[in-house]
């Protein structure tokens, strides 16, 4: 079975401490997740997630405090507003939506942390490696897709030659 490579953005107050709590409780957590500690889930710019995928992450998990419990009052609100949009555009661009997840784990919820990470990794395994990362040139297949595409309108005045 493929072992996915997962980046976890963990907020320092809740989910990072929650991960700690999972550890001290000796809960089994998949090794696939590499944690990046951030002060708040609101700090996680969508561009960072995009970059993680570009660099070959198979999944990105963003964990913050529960809504209403943000150490910074409402930083997690902003994450909750932004990240669904990133997910939406990634899915639209062809990525499986299972590869990005935003969820909440409080400092005391070691069990929840372990459960979410396990769930996430379990969902990624059957998907196999992320094909998102491109090494070098893309296949220059003009995918045979029967849809009306705009003409290269700027040049449409070009000469009908020989």
């Amino acid at each position, binding site marked *: 079975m493929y072992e996915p490579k997962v980046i976890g953005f963990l907020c320092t107050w809740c989910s990072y401490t929650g991960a700690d709590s999972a550890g001290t409780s000796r809960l089994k957590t998949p090794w696939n997740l590499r944690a990046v500690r951030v002060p708040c889930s609101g700090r996680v710019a969508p*561009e960072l997630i995009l*970059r993680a995928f570009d660099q070959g992450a198979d999944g990105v998990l963003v964990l913050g405090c529960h*809504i209403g419990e943000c150490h910074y009052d409402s930083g997690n609100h902003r994450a909750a507003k932004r*990240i*669904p949009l990133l997910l939406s555009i*990634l899915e639209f*661009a062809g*990525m499986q939506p299972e590869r990005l997840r935003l969820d909440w784990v409080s400092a005391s919820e070691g069990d929840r942390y372990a459960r979410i990470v396990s769930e996430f990794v379990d969902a990624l395994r059957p998907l196999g490696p992320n094909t998102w990362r*491109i090494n070098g040139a893309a296949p220059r297949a003009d995918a045979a897709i029967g849809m009306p595409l705009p003409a290269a309108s700027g040049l449409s005045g070009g000469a009908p030659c020989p």
Partner: protein
Amino acid sequence: MSISEAMQSAARDVLASGQVQRVIGYETGPHGRVRPAIIDRPEEAERLVWSADCTHNLTVYLHRALTGENGRASREAVAPPARVAIVVKPCDSRAINVLLAEHQFSREQVFAIGMACEGMRQGAPASAPEATLQARCLRCRERVPVVHDVLLGEPPSALPEALPDEALAHVRDLPPAERAAFWLSQFDRCIRCYACRQACPMCNCPTCLFEQEDALWVGMRIAPSEKRTFHLGRALHLAGRCVGCNECERVCPMGIPIGLLNRHLAETVESLYGHRAGMQPVLSPVTGMLSAEESAP
């Protein structure tokens, strides 16, 4: 009096009375192609035209005109005009609202000559007498600019049914793998000329994030990964801000359907947060708080 004449007269009046120091409108260039016109004197007003080929979103010039930043640090220390008149279609006028919300200029600095719009024609002018409306105009139901100081032309009383976005639905319905392949093949054509970005009124960062010297977010390589990051990142930055003028797609020499990305996110923002960019001068809700009824994922 034709609408073009009415527009010329409005432009002449505001220039002659000193209400504005500059008018941004449309004129006809070589080969009969309509293009942006920037005039400073009342007697130039006769150059202005209005037709179904005035597709450019002129608001892209507003910030530059008002700050005098024709380029970022002009050597010619010419005082920028205090107030600028601009010819706007309904879609363009929404861009004014977005820019107002983002503090790019104040409402008093803009005199909007609103045009009742019945849609722009597809393709090159004059060459196609029976030219059809652009697809975006067939989807659009706005006929009167949301921001205007004068309104020219009669908005049609009966509106045709807005057409559904078939292209968007088509791409959404593709299986993920095909969708990924489709987009890669589209992005692959990109030559990073940035015409899309430069034509966009919302893209007004001093230096684009995706073109920073430090190559922190994306390298300078003109390769598929970098191009995709640029296009997806730009779409994200336009979420809740894009007014759908489709200039990015129009100017693209490589025919990349950039508008699909923006439309997809605009629909997502509207369904998630009930926000349509530019209908009011308010910031994109993407930075804000969840409202009471929105629940966390």
